[in-house]
Structure formats: C-alpha cells, structure tokens
C-alpha cells in the first residue's frame, strides 16, 4: 500500500470532499429555471455557411450553344447563396417521375456574385445522360429548383499551389476554371492563371465572351484555345501535350489544374509523367462516375451486360431491385427511387457510403477513395462500385 506521507489535513479534508456536491447543489439551486432554449451561434453560422439544401428560383437561362445552357439561380427566400471557393460545385436535386435524381454541376459564376444574391450553374447535354437531358428540356425561368450547398476540393489553395497555375481543360470542364478566372478578376483569388482549353473546333469553344470580359479586367488570366480538329490563326492545334504545357508554363514553378472528361485525364496522366510533375503540383477535378467498367483491368468479363438482384436494407425497410452490371450501383438505387445521400458521383466524397453485406462488386482503382478501415470491413461507395454478382447492401436513409 501507499507510502505517501502527506501533511495531515484531517477531518477538514473529508468534509471538504463531501461538501463538494453541496456546493454543486447550491450553484444549481441559485440558477434560474426560466431561461430555456438552446441557441448556439456557432451552429447557426455553420448551418448558414454549409446549407444542407438551397432552394432557388431560375432567374435567367443563357444558351451557350453546343447543347450547353447556363442557369442563373436566385435564392427563393431572398437570402444570399452560400459563399463558395471558385472551382466548387453544387449537387442539383431534381425529382423526375417521383424519383429524386442528384447530379453534381459546376458553378460557372464567381464567388462575389453570391453577394448579389445569385449563382450560375452550367449544364451540358450528355447524349445518354438522364438529368442533363431533363434539365435542358424542362427547366424554364421562374421554376423552383433545389441544390446542395457548395461542395468539392478543386480550388486554389495558396499554401499548397504555386503562384502560377496552368489549367488544362476540355469541353464543359471549363466551368470551374471560368469561375476561378472570375474570382481572380474580382480579387477573391490571387494567382496567375493560364488556361489551355481543348476543343474540337472553334464552334465548340464555350464562354469565349466571358473569358474576354475577365481578361479585360485582369492581366493575370490568359486563355489559349487548343483545337484538335481544326487549324486556325491564333489557336494552338492538336492535343494538350507536355510540350504545349511547357511552352506556356515557362521557366517558373507552376501547378497544373485539370478539369475535363475521363479520356482527357488518361491522356494527361502520361504527359504529366513526362513533365515530372509530383502530385502536389497536379490537381484533378473529379470527372464523375467511371463509364464502361468492363474496359478496366480486373473486370470479370462474364459480368458485363448482366442484370443482378440487389437486396437493399434501408433502416426498417427492405427492397429487392434489379442492378445493371454496366452501371454503378448508385444508379440502380436511383432507378428504384431509393438513393440516399450522394454528392460527387466519383467515389471521392463518401456520402453514399454503404455496407456490403454479401455479394461481389468491382471497384475501379481509379475511383477507389474509400477509408482504410472501410476497405477492411467491407464498405463501398456505390457511385464507384459495380455489382458482379447478386448483392445485399445496407444504405443510409434517403429522407
């Protein structure tokens, strides 16, 4: 037992100990029972800054040509949309035939415009797309639409990125880059941006006027159009190669930002290898879900084109739904009208995280961004997983 010799406080100490609760009782007794309610200012501010949902009215629609339209959205309740970092996206949540469909769309306006009450999102019609087709065909001025708060990590980070940024962009992947250019013009961001914008021909180039407007305001933004199927004076032709990047990057250190379709990344990954860029200096926007998983290494050929049975447990409900092997599992949930929370559609954000109870799935390495322990315990991100057998999964509530 203890050898401690303390100065003997004696009975007083025991009293002191036993009196503690009495002191507590006294404090409690002295407090008022009238004040009620739990108002926490930090929580209120957090909810304002990161809204779960924003309800908008479509104020203006701008046809950009090439099946691309921009929608200027103003908050229904008159408050300003959540402030965002140029390059972020919102998730559009649209009910179609009673089913809630969600897709990420880039914000093409600058952050400063939120202070005037609006954001602009840009949607490109994808031939086999579901939501884009609906939006282009149906959205009209005055309609009410819902989005998430701002999401995503594709933005300039001054502590990480070089002062000089070369952006490689293709097709509608230009939208987050345009937002960054606008943010530079308004002073919200401070870096030099050289945009290498790949299009097939001059007709396909989007936002030419918007970039001209930005470049009239600031000399920190430069635009280089790169045409793959046309040669023209004042335009680069071919693809965005390592040599082209080097030509415009010059001798300074630079960060490379890439935003475009899956094929562009596949091409660019090889070019950046040649440039010797490390991962700190090469940032990629999420390109959405993997298409044609059967073209990827490791995919069991026999699964292609099959429709599997998917058992879904969602809280106290159970469903059995068909799951097309060629589409990611989140699409199956969406088709059945039971998709839960989801945002990035590219395996990154983890909002659709679900428990795989049984069955086999194919997870392309390219978009496998699960937590380590989730891999160990069999959790999947349905937006980046493809069923290759009948499966049973447990998903978060969709309400």
């Amino acid at each position, binding site marked *: *037992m*203890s*050898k*401690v*010799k*303390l*100065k*003997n*406080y004696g009975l007083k*100490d*025991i009293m002191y*100990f036993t009196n*503690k609760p009495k*002191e*507590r*009782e006294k*404090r*409690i007794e*002295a*407090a008022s*029972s009238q004040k*009620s*309610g*739990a108002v*926490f*200012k*930090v*929580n*209120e*501010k*957090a*909810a304002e*800054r*990161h809204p779960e949902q924003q309800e908008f009215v479509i104020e203006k629609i701008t046809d950009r040509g090439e099946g691309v339209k921009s929608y200027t959205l103003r908050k229904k309740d008159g408050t300003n949309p959540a*402030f965002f970092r140029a390059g972020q996206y919102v998730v559009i949540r649209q009910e179609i035939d009673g089913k809630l469909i969600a897709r990420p769309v880039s914000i093409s306006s600058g952050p400063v415009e939120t202070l005037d009450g609006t954001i602009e999102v840009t949607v490109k019609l994808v031939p086999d797309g579901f939501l884009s087709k609906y939006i282009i065909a149906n959205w009209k001025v005055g309609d009410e639409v819902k989005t998430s708060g701002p999401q995503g*990590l594709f933005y300039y*980070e*001054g*502590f*990480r990125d070089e002062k000089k940024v070369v952006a490689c962009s293709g097709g509608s992947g230009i939208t987050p880059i345009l937002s960054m250019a606008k943010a530079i013009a308004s002073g919200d961001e401070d870096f030099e941006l050289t945009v290498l914008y790949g299009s097939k021909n001059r007709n396909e180039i989007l936002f030419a006027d918007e970039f001209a407007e930005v470049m009239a305001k600031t000399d920190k933004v430069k635009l280089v159009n790169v045409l793959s199927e046309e040669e023209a004076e004042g335009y680069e032709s071919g693809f965005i190669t390592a040599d082209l990047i080097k030509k415009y990057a010059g001798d300074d250190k630079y960060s490379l930002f890439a935003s475009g379709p899956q094929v562009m990344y596949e091409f660019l990954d090889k070019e950046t290898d040649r440039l010797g860029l490390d*991962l*700190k200096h090469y940032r990629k926007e999420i390109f959405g879900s993997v298409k044609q998983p059967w073209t990827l290494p490791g995919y069991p050929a026999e699964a292609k084109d099959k429709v599997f049975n998917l058992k879904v447990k969602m809280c*106290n409900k159970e469903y059995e739904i068909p799951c097309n092997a060629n589409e990611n599992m989140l699409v199956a949930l969406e088709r059945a009208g039971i998709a*839960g*929370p989801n945002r990035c559609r590219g395996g990154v954000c*983890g*909002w*659709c*995280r679900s428990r795989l109870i049984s069955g086999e799935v194919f997870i392309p390495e390219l978009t496998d*961004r699960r*937590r*380590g*322990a*989730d891999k*160990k*315990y069999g959790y999947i991100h349905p937006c980046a997983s493809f069923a290759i057998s009948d499966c049973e999964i447990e998903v*978060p*509530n*969709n*309400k």
Partner: protein
Amino acid sequence: MAAKYDVVVVGSGNAGLSAAVSCVVQGKKTLLIEKHNLPGGVASSFSRGRFEFDPSVHEICDVGAGDDLGHVGLIMEKNGIDVDWVTVPDCYRCISKYSDGTPMDVTIPAGREAYIDAIEKYVPGSREPLEKFFDLIYEIRLAKVYMFDGTPNDPKYMQKHFPNTLKTCGYDSLSVMKALKIPQKAIDIIGVYWPYLGVPLDEVNFFHFGNMIDMYVTRRAVVPHHTSHEITMTFMNRFYELGGEAWFNCRAEEFLFDGDKICGVRTSMGDVECDQVLANINPHIIYANMMPKELVPEREKKLYAARKNNLSTRFSMIYFALNKSCEELGLTDYCVFFAGTADSRKEYENLKSIDNDYNILISYNNIIPDASPEGTCVISFTKLFSDGKDWSEMTAEEYYKAKDKMIEKCIEDVKKNLNIDITPYIEEVEVATPMTFARYLGTPEGTPYGFEVKSWDGVIARMTDIEADFNIKGLRHIGAGSFFGDGYSSTWINGDMTAGLACADLEEGGK
C-alpha cells in the same frame, strides 16, 4: 409504431458506440440511430488526395496492454472490441515558458521511472516529491477501481485503504502538488497536460488530474493504427455481429413519453417503440427541442442554466500532408506542445481569444510509419479556444482569412520552434474549426466535449449526484456532457456504465 426495441441509442459517437455494443453483449434488442451518413462522430477519418487523416485523436489513455489493462482496456475486452493499438513512447516535448518566465524546452518520456528521471534532470530536487506523487496517484487508481466497480462504497474500507486519496481528492491539483513540495518548475512540466481536462490546475480536482497523469504516464497512451475510424468500425462490426441494428442518415426528432416514462423515439424514419433510450446528445439540445417542456425536471433546467457558460474547450485542427518523410524533415517527436506559458491559469485566460499562441503538433508517422504513403507524412495541429464567440461573429470572407491565418501560424510555429520550414512540401492542407465540428457533430458551439469540469462540477461531484442529475424515467444521457467527463476514454466508459444501468432497469422490469 413498427418494431419494438429494448434500447434505442441515439448518436453513434464514442459513447453511443460503446453503449450500443454493451447492450447487445447483454442480449438486448438494440437500435442505434445516427443523423450522419456514417458512425463515429469525431472518431472518424477523412481523405484528401492520397492521404487519410484522423480528425481528432492525439493519444488515448486507460487502455493498457497485456495483464495490465486499464478501465477502457477491460471494457474493450469484455465487449469483444479488438483494435490494432500502437503504444506512444513519449509523453511529449513542450516548448514554452515556465511560470517564472524562463524558457522551457523539455522532452518527457512515459513510464514512471523514466518520467521522474527526466524531470529530475530538468528540475533537480524533484525526485523525492515525485515519488510521493506517483505513490499517491497509484493509490487513486486503486481507489477509483474500488469506487466505480458497481458495488456500494464502504467509507471505513476507503479510510483504511485509500486515506491519502480521501485527504487530497477534495482539493485542486495545484494545491496538492504544492503540498507534496513539488518544485514549481516540475509542476509546470507535469501540468502540460492540463488542457486535456480543459480546466487550469488551480481549479481542476486532483483526483481527476492525478488519475489522468497515472493513465498517460504510468500506463502509457495508445493510438489506433489506422485512424479512429478503425476504432469506430471495430465497434460497428461487433454490434452487427451480435444482431444490433443501425440506421444512418436518420434523425431522432423527439422523445415519446407514456406519462412520465419514455416509450419511444420519433425519427425521420417514423416512430420507434422502446423501453430505454440512451441519448448521446448534449442535454441542452434534448431539453430545448426534443421533449415536452413540462416533463423537463425543474432541477435539470437549473443545472443547465448554471452550466450555460461552461461549455468545454473548442478546437481548431489544422491538417497537413507533406511530400517528405518526418525523418527527412527532422520532425522527430510524436507530440510537441507550443504554449505561450506553462502557467495554466494564465494560458486558460489567453485561450479566450482565437489569436492565442497555444498549439499542439502531432507527427503521426513517428509512431505509425505507414500513416501515409512512403516518402510523405501527415501532421496535425490543435488549437484550443475557451470561448466560441469570435467564430460566430465573422463574415464568410473573414472566416476564410481566419483559417488562412491559422495555417500561417502553424507554419510559423514549426519554423520558429523547430527550425523546420514545411512550406515547400505541403501537398494537402485542411482546417477544421469549431464551425466544422458544429456542422458535423451538431454539438453546442461546436465543442466536441461537454461541460468544463470546474471545481463545483467536477467528475466526483457529478458522480455523487448521479441519481439527482438527468432524472427522467427510461431516458439516460451518455456522452461528453454526462457524469464521467469528456474525451475518448471517458465517453467509452460512460457509455458502457450507463448501458449497464439501462440493462439492469430492463431486467428489473422482467426483460
């Protein structure tokens, strides 16, 4: 109402997970409800690029190893939770100023002998009083086991076996350490851990503080090998194994009563019937929004009015992934405290401002080499605030600037104190503020903790009042604001103990 459960646990943070597993281990039909899409609360992880970060863990106490399991270790063993733990070899390095203003730069190893040797080296003459100090905190360990083993406490037995515990446990920690004649500079070194309890040495009860030192120094701390999300998943796996049900992205909206006894929970998935509810929610929120006002006991209204300015410490965490290894950078310590002063009272006052100097650096790869890909490392900084006011008064632009300023401060702290410039190597950087914690946890003002263990509201006083506090039939409060204090270990213990009480009630009712 659809299904009926013996117990519904609301909130799958540390206390909720511990409670839920404890209930299924005791054979109870248990439902765990979580408003977020994944379990864990702060015990989680997040990805940036090729890195995975732990949002909160520094080091976890009271686990122990082998034959010497701590309270937490025993609970984990009893409930079949097997986590891949890594032991932390050193307590900390602290770069600060002693109370008398002279500079301090000490590296303190864990383990009683090594710890005493190190302090004796820095402050000669400390050895003898420190031996007494360690004898005393060992006695407190035994007293604590006796007091919290679930059997009635016999005052005579306690007077015989734990006389020094009884003598000291009514006093603040500074007074007891002074009474033991520990030199002030040595008190300053021992006191480095004070922010872990959030209340300065002249106010925090010695029983609590001394026991913490015993747990961190004598028994040594551990960290999970694969972030705290791994701990959470180990709990969940065990919970499912024993037939537990969990609903995610499901909000508990209201507690349902039959007379004055709870009978169910209204959720965003409908009403759920049950006999017992274990709520891992701050009581402020329960009383304001989740139950009929007339059923809130008068005493509880007063208790939370008395506690309204006593929310525990708030945090900002600044996470960096660097594309060089700790070794290449020269970051050799796991944990470094940068403090303006070792005077805990002065520092506590400083923490009211968000511009305070206090900062804790953790370099994970020093004890978990594979915490990040080869040739890289992940580090985090923790800044503390004892008041949340500044955060709620910022515009969006000011908020982003404040975050940037904290990043700058971290870079500066490492440059100034360790002579290392991490700037060229930053591959990822992320900041979590009290706003972030408020957003993900929903806790008051974004504290991941509960209420300060001030002298009048310390753990001993709360334990003594356990019958009087939160006196609502069938509804028990678990978690950071409950009787056992806050932090990982405390809330696991709290969840397990409270689940035991709920299960005992069920059995009394014939279930």
